[in-house]
């Protein structure tokens, strides 16, 4: 079948969306943007295609009366097993890479011991991975780097201790190798992995097997790919396959909420205010000026400064009942301002509430610059997940623009890629 793919190469994550020619979303994928943009694009695309297969399975199983009501469970099982197969494959690659990387004077005479330690570690990793992919277990991350990393630390340290070997030796090898593995283009044979996953699973009746195999047999033709995002110029695409993230963002928001007229996106590096017409074409846009004050990164600094996780800031700010007025959204001064306030005896939640308001005030100015807020209004980007920021935004939108429908999609991170995929469809279908 014809697949239309949008890839959004952002500064921290890369997202991909696969669409069919009827503008139906088939799959979505995300990965961390590494130093190698080609790989990030390839991985996110593969993830989206994996998701596409799952959609096809779902469609295939929908007509099987025997599994009625159990499709979700079956697919969850299948994906879990698929991820496990994929994880083991990458683990194998990592092990080989680690062993190949044992060179240099620091390993002289100790190669064998290091290899043994690594083999031991990876063996335990493989064993423990079964538990990570057991039914009902929530994994901490979807990225191989995070999953393998944490486990490697605990098993590696134990193995080395038993062997009387310094952990830093194998850690050094690991650090070097994980970058190599991460930057390697993803291996193919997705279909094969699904077959293996199917075999591992518990639900292998022919009523499942047949439709899944039929779905697997559908060729996924990459008909048209559109790249966008800040790293788009680095994508190995011909120029006509590249669209600005502003355009993609506007169109993506329109696809999620067709009545959208104004879009606000607060990302890590920039804040955008976009006006779109009834078919999702950008009419006007403004971004934060050269000064990146008040972008998502600002919250990142604050989190670091307070020794908190980024996702913990919003909930703490929600506890405030006496907001402190923060006048500077300058990222450079954020730390100093914060310490000044703490020294004055202000409460952390009150300062945080003020900081969230300051960011949203900045966004309000950009919206004002872009021509104000029209109904409906869609808020996207990482900061849209922050409840304290959303609370302030709702308040200020109401004060300044009255009753406006405010859309916030929990999956808004895919907005740009969704717009890209839509452009891909439009490029071919029209």
């Amino acid at each position, binding site marked *: 079948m014809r697949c239309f793919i949008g890839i959004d190469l952002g500064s921290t994550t890369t997202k991909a969306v696969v669409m069919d020619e009827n503008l139906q979303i088939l799959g979505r994928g995300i990965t961390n943007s590494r130093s190698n943009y080609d790989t990030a694009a390839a991985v996110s695309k593969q993830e989206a295609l994996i998701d596409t297969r799952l959609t096809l399975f779902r469609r295939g199983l929908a007509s099987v009366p025997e599994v009625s009501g159990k499709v979700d469970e079956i697919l969850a099982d299948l994906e879990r097993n698929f991820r496990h197969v994929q994880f083991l494959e990458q683990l194998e690659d990592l092990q080989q890479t680690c062993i190949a990387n044992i060179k240099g004077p620091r390993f002289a005479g100790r190669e064998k011991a290091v290899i043994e330690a690594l083999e031991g570690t990876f063996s335990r990793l493989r064993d423990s991975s079964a538990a990570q992919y057991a039914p009902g277990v929530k994994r901490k991350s979807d990225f191989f780097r995070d999953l393998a990393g944490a486990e490697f630390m605990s098993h590696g340290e134990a193995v080395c201790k038993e062997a009387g070997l310094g952990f830093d030796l194998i850690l050094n090898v690991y650090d070097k190798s994980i970058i190599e593995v991460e930057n390697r283009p993803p291996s193919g044979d997705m279909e094969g992995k699904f077959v293996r996953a199917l075999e591992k699973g518990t639900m292998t009746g022919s009523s499942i097997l047949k439709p899944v195999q039929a779905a697997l047999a559908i060729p996924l033709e990459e008909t048209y790919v559109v790249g966008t995002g800040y790293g788009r110029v680095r994508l190995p695409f011909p120029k006509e396959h590249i669209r600005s993230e502003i355009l993609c963002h506007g169109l993506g928001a329109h696809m*999620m909420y067709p009545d959208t007229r104004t879009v606000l996106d607060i990302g890590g590096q920039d804040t955008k205010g976009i006006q779109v017409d009834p*078919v999702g074409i950008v009419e006007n846009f403004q971004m934060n000026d050269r000064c990146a004050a008040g972008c998502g990164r600002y919250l990142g600094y604050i989190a670091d400064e307070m020794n908190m996780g980024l996702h913990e800031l919003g909930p703490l700010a929600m506890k405030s009942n006496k907001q402190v007025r923060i006048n500077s959204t300058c990222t450079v001064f954020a730390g100093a301002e914060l310490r000044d306030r703490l020294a004055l005896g202000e409460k952390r939640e009150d300062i945080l509430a003020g900081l969230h308001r300051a960011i949203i005030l900045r966004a309000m100015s950009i919206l004002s610059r872009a021509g104000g807020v029209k109904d409906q209004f869609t808020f996207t980007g990482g900061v849209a997940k922050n409840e304290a920021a959303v609370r302030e935004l709702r308040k200020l939108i109401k004060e300044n623009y009255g009753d406006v429908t405010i859309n916030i999609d929990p999956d808004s991170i895919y907005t740009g890629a969704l717009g890209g995929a839509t452009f891909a469809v439009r490029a071919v279908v*029209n």
Partner: protein
Amino acid sequence: MSKPEAVKEASMEMQKKMIARNYDAITSKHETGRKVSSTFVPGNLNELLMCFDIVNNLPEINAIQAGMRKASGGYIMEAEKSGHSEDVCTYVKADIGQMSKGNIAPNGKPYPNPDVLMLSYTGCYTFMKWFELLREEYKCPTLMLHVPYEGDGHSTKNMRDYIVKQLKEVVIPGLEQVSGVKFDIDRLRQYLRNSAKAEDNLVWCLEQGKVTPSPIDAYFGGVYYIGPIFTAFRGTDDAVAYYEMLRKEVQGRVENHQGPLTPEGTYFNDQKYRLIVEGPPNWTNFREFWKMFYDEGAVVVASSYTKVGGLYDQGFRHDPENPLESLADYCLGCYTNLNLPTRVDLLAKYVEEYQADGLLINSIKSCNSFSAGQLMIMKEVERRTGKPGAFIETDLVDPRYFSAANVKNRLESYFQMIEQKRRGGGSKTVAA
């Protein structure tokens, strides 16, 4: 790795020689005994200086030269080290930093100290401080010509009288004293006659931006076209000859349906977007900046920067019949001396008359005279013309303030937006 030399047209070569001769005249003043003045581009009184055989040196142009030679960054940091704020104009800092680094002219010889600072104070507050700062350095006579701002959108008789009076009672006696040459108003008339001739041809060339494809680039190419008239050559025979030559070149391109010549030596014929640009260019990355436009098919058909030294296209000419009055009118009418509503009128008119796709603003950090209020200008021009505007930010000669990725991102977004709007939107289908 050195950059390939930019391909130049005959008029550019001629201008280059004129500029080189002027730098030689400046740096050889001790040998020739000629007096040198420093002065500014807007409100530049070149014809008057010529009446006293004074060579005209323009610190703004020197800063541009330093910017294009990639030397300005070091000069600016030098000035900041000596106490100049990071917040203020980088032309000033490049000029002051250059002094402490030997003050070498583009011809490799040291700039001599000026004999007079001709402070034609038109349209830019910083000019006043700039020459107060230079005065501390050179301790030479400083002649202030205060040109009032056209706050209500027009000049008044009082403003004109005030300027003429300053010319008669401050500037001319001051220049006589510095040069030892007696003022001869007929000499001034002769130079003004030359100015008007050159101005006619400049206007003709600038107006060819209305042709499709445009045979000129009124921004990146425009800075070359305005060179002689805005600097040390207005009123000279050289300038008259230059504009005749330029006119022939432009005429030739019109006849051949050619676009302007890019620095890469190709005619830029495949023009997809026609823009009006407001604000000065960036000089440190001039060619890279220009390339971002022609690579995407964007040609600038009219700009406000080519009006900083006079709005000749709106009818003004130097007038030998009313020499001092016409110098006063000239000073009053420079672009940055116009109030914001007048600037909006002019830009909106350009969008219409040059059939442009929209107004692009290059907002310059250094230049509040241009920049403060540009977002209002954009909003108004968008509202009046119905054409989308765009906003990018750079600086004149501070390389720290040019972010290529950032500028490119915005430009591409803007061009793609124009393209999309032109198609009237894509598929009307919406997601189910």
